[in-house]
């Protein structure tokens, strides 16, 4: 009996010559519980106290649905754009040596560092109809500031480093030889990029996409300045939560938050699943 139990224990606890599994796992769980799980449980508890019919009514409120739609669609578009530009930026930084490369490399991280409100105000100043770029775009009929397009621009600025920083190290590891092998087999440059290099980067690109998307969904500071915050058009869900809080309507605030939480979790879970699949598929399983 005792031996069976210890065998089962060993099966569960990965045997490793490096000690510390119990300690680190315990620390991780405690940490996650204190920082993430308890606050989120409080949120769920609070919204559960609403009662089912109230919850459904609050969530299906047209203004709430509009805000959720704006939040998720802009974050999705911005993440897709960031994947394209992030991969190009990473490529330039990894592949070419040019004067000022290190400065460009540092600039990529700036969106991490500057307060998001500053980024939002700066973007608004530039893209407003009387701004530096906005004044040139206005005659073309393109309005950026105070529209969903403005939200997308802000989210692109905020999310870019996530894609660059996840793709860059993996790209660095692609050996020149693999590209030379493709070329010697007759592949053109484009064929090499699309059939050899990019498939190898897929897991990293997906990670960057997931991070940029998650950040975009939750982004508040930069967006509220450039968005114009017109209900049903350019009002994001996080802002609506704040508005509800300011109206002391805590129930509505937690209901919106809970819905965002569930959708975000499902999306990230799906992306993780695709990622695991592509890792296996593309042979990074080791």
């Amino acid at each position: 009996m005792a031996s069976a139990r210890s065998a089962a224990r060993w099966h569960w606890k990965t045997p490793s010559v490096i000690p510390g599994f119990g300690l680190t796992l315990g620390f991780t769980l405690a940490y996650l519980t204190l920082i993430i799980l308890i606050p989120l449980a409080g949120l769920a508890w609070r919204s559960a106290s609403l009662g089912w019919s109230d919850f459904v009514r609050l969530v299906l409120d047209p203004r709430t649905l509009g805000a959720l739609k704006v939040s998720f669609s802009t974050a999705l578009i911005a993440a897709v754009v960031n994947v394209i530009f992030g991969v190009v930026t990473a490529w330039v930084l990894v592949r070419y040596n040019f004067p000022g490369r290190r400065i460009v490399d540092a600039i990529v991280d700036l969106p991490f560092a500057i307060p998001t409100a500053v980024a939002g105000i700066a973007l608004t100043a530039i893209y407003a109809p009387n701004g530096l770029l906005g004044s040139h775009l206005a005659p073309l009929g393109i309005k950026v500031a105070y529209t969903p397009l403005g939200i997308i621009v802000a989210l692109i600025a905020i999310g870019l480093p996530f894609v660059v920083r996840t793709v860059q190290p993996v790209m660095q590891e692609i050996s020149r030889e693999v590209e030379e092998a493709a070329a010697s087999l007759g592949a053109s440059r484009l064929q090499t990029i699309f059939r050899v290099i990019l498939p190898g980067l897929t897991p990293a690109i997906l990670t960057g996409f997931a991070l940029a998307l998650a950040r975009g969904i939750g982004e508040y500071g930069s967006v509220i300045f450039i968005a114009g915050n017109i209900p049903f058009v350019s009002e994001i869900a996080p802002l609506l939560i704040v508005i509800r809080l300011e109206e002391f309507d805590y129930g509505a605030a937690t209901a919106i938050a809970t819905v965002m939480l569930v959708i975000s979790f499902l999306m990230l879970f799906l992306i993780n699943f695709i990622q695991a699949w592509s890792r296996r598929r593309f042979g990074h399983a080791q």
Partner: protein
Amino acid sequence: MEIRVEKIRKEFDLYPALHDVSLKIESGELIALLGPSGSGKTTLLRLIAGLEQPTLGRIFFGEEDASYKTVQERNVGFVFQHYALFRHMNVAQNVAFGLTVRPRHQRPPKAEIRRRALELLDMMQLTGLEKRFPNQLSGGQRQRVALARAMAIEPRVLLLDEPFGALDAKVRKELRRWLREFHDRTGHTTVFVTHDQEEALELADRVVVMSQGKIEQVGSSDDVYDRPNSPFVFSFIGESANLPVSVIDGTVHFHGQSTGLAAQRDGEAHLFFRPQDVSLVEEGPGLSGPVTSSRRLAGTRIAEVELGSAKSPCHVEIEVPLDASVSNGTTLAFRPTRWKLFY
């Protein structure tokens, strides 16, 4: 396909990697580029492949000037030291890659591509592994996949860059023999780079010995081993001893003593000989000195002898009969039976 390299010069950032190298590779030949690292052997191979562009000089594939053709246009099979397999493709997809990227009008139908990939894998003794991914294969299997992939495009010439360098000794030996058989069966013109002289001498029809961006000697294994034409080749290939000597009146003198070896031209020179090409002498002129160490090496005994004055001693290793009594301090006298002087 016959390949001619004419006065190729290659500079990297003004640092010359190859100085005016010329070489003719016969059709169907298996040829080795041998040299220490930094000798330019890999650069020469990459120039033939088109992975580098020459600074000066020309490269001909048959009668066609291929000097400035791209690697895609040259239709060469290139095998890298670290395999360079596409890790997101399985073995069959790797092998078929060269065919699937062809323009539509030159591309064989899907079934035909698959048939050819499987046929090549069969030839490489990789049957049944076509669904595996590269990271599920051993080093030797990966290198055979790389070779199959290179062969799939029916290359005009097969170029291998240290193909066995990353493999362990046993697999290396197996693959070496296997490559020789493969070459004899298919008759492809094959050039391979190696820094392992044993590999070059065993495998190649002809060996190109390179040093510091120049070709030192081109010849068969017997040529470069038995008739080296420069001090570098003599000391690089096999074991050898090297003594500073002077030729006086047609006789080679070492430290003022006659060695009994005759030479044509007087002057300062270096005497080269191999450890096994000596005979012990009882009397008469020769080289002599105390034994400083000796060791048994398989079927032979090697003695290290100190020659010259105590101030500037020269240590040489010679092969002595197994039954010879050599202990540290006994004086040995010997004379090289095959030797060469470089002035």
